């Protein structure tokens, strides 16, 4: 069975091609796991209803609620009304749709609820070699476990519900080869922001990224998820990392992984997935992890990003660039360091996992956030919340003066009423600094949990290495 060396992407693609693509028609690609949530599914279920179709494989479909869901404990567990009535309706609609079509729902009060991209891996539903889709662009997160995972629109959500398949053209492959290791005080968030600064916000369009090399192998699973999560911020629909012993150790014993002999069989299949030596990529980019510094965004897309001690660049004659700086209230040539912040948000599918909370707590322990700063800590899932509370992290945050909430997307996109005020500066561990993303007129600075915590303490943009003593 001699065959040409194949990439991880090519292997997963080959294993899921129901009907091969031709010059005239895209492939029919089979989907192993379909994650759904309250915001991008109602219109898809409505189409099923209109056409008299059912959900083909409800057991391969998993629903939860996260986007427009409240994070206030009293609105989830205390019987208080959900403050946004249309959001409450959306939540009830998902409950009705899941009941009608036989889809498992990790609902509002489920102990397993959380941000869809946090709970998939946490439950072991996300596995190497799977094709995974969700009506959310940060589905790329799941690629950290060696899956081919990408965001889809609502029409495609309907296609997968009805047929467990999608029509797809095979994307191109982009290898990002990361050598060396991150320095102390520099995180996976800084690495992906650095990568986006190198390839640009559309540098990955039409491609699936495979992050490779010793700088990636050295990352733990939470860090790998942070990297893959923001692939879409470089325009790539999916990012992936070959499964290895770190991946298998993470998955072992999780509730939805194969058990016993089937686990051994799965391991054998998974070990065959990494890209073969000599496999060809359509493009390759080299990144030196040791050169990465703590990064922070200054503009209105994630490519407008600089090292925390750097100065905002100038781009003569670029009106859109100048408009972005005007929106942010910044001037070219000035430093971000020491700019005052009003809000600090720790959470999201990018940085809402346990290790992110631990990192921030390592800075906040025994310290208080600066007067006038509002800090919101929103765990990525109810499981993350429980684990954090078991180690006392919530007390660190509360003692520091931060708010400790129930899980959800929260202030990352401000759908649930967790908002940043007009003109306020938000230092956020989320993934998008678009105009108005966190509230009308809100000004978002994206950075790592370490930078967020350090900046909360000082009330100004702060290099975390100054506080950590690196």
């Amino acid at each position: 069975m001699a065959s040409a060396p194949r990439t991880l992407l090519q292997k997963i693609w080959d294993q899921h091609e129901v009907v091969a693509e031709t010059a005239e028609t895209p492939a029919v690609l089979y989907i192993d796991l379909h994650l759904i949530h309250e915001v991008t599914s109602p219109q898809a279920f409505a189409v099923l209803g209109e056409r008299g179709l059912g959900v083909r494989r409800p057991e391969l479909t998993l629903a939860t609620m996260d986007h427009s869901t409240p994070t206030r404990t009293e609105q989830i567990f205390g019987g208080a009304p959900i403050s946004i009535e249309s959001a409450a309706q959306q939540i009830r609609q998902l409950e009705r749709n899941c009941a009608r079509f036989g889809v498992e729902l990790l609902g509002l009060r489920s102990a397993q609820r959380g941000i869809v991209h946090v709970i998939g891996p946490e439950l072991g539903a996300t596995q190497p070699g799977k094709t995974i889709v969700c009506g959310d662009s940060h589905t790329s997160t799941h690629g950290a476990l060696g899956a081919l995972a990408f965001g889809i629109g609502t029409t495609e959500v309907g296609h997968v519900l009805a047929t467990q398949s999608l029509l797809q053209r095979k994307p191109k492959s982009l290898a990002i080869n990361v050598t060396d290791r991150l320095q102390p005080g520099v995180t996976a968030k800084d690495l992906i922001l650095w990568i986006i600064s190198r390839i640009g916000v559309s540098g990955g369009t039409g491609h699936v990224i495979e992050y490779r090399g010793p700088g990636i192998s050295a990352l733990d699973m939470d860090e790998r998820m942070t990297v893959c999560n923001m692939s879409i911020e470089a325009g790539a629909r999916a990012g992936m990392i070959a499964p290895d012993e770190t991946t298998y150790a993470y998955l072992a014993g999780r509730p939805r992984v194969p058990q016993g002999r089937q686990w051994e069989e799965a391991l054998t299949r998974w070990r065959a997935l990494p890209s073969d030596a000599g496999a060809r990529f359509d493009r390759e980019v080299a990144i030196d992890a040791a050169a990465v510094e703590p990064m922070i965004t200054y503009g209105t897309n994630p490519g407008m990003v600089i090292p925390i001690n750097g100065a905002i660049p100038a781009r003569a004659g670029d009106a859109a660039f100048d408009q972005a700086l005007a929106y942010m209230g910044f001037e070219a040539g000035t430093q971000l360091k020491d700019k005052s912040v009003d809000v600090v948000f720790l959470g999201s599918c990018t940085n809402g996992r346990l290790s992110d909370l631990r990192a921030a707590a390592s800075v906040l322990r025994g310290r208080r956030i600066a007067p006038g700063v509002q800090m919101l800590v929103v765990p990525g899932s109810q499981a993350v919340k429980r684990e954090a509370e078991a180690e006392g992290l919530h007390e660190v945050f509360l003692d520091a003066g931060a708010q400790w909430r129930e899980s959800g997307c929260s202030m990352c996109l401000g759908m649930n009423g967790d908002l940043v005020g007009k003109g306020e500066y938000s230092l956020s561990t989320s993934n998008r600094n678009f105009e108005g993303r966190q509230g009308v007129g809100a000004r978002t600075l994206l950075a790592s949990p370490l930078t967020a915590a350090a900046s909360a303490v000082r009330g100004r943009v702060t290099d975390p290495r100054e506080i950590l003593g690196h």
Partner: protein
Amino acid sequence: MQPIRTLRSRTVVLGAANIDTDQIIPARFLTTTTRDGLGQHLFADWRYDADGPRHDFILNGVDARNCSILVAGRNFGCGSSREHAPWALLDYGFRAVISTEIADIFRSNALKNGLLPVVVDAATSQWLIEHPGAEVSIDLPASTLTLPTGAAISFVLEPFARNLLVNGIDELGFLIEHDAEITAFEHGRPQG
């Protein structure tokens, strides 16, 4: 889905690069369970302020309402996968978007709703951005865009997508026709 064969319209120009789907339709309008009526919220934060419509924003002009072709800067539709973005553009009255580069998920969503993504070269894009309101025509079966100068520019759209748009067919019917292959595939896979 409305079939598209030809479009002839003056253009509306939003020339900035990297217009993301959060701008096209902000997240607070996504707490809806239908796809109707989103045109009123299209570009809401650029179009309205606390006092109402901003008269200096092009989509509030009388002319824009009669235009069905939007010209946008590079990397249009990046960011969130929300299909509410093409729904809002269509509900407002647009049928085509022209750019040098259109983000993957937005492009896929647009095609599924009869909003035509037209990718052109940098020089053509620059001409269009510098001539807002130019009357252009698009011939989809021929995949050409014709400028008022008479220049006819070819654009690439794969034959499958073009066929669906020209005939107003949606993909779901095509997928359902492959039911037997999907079933056979499911039976031939390792379990677990």
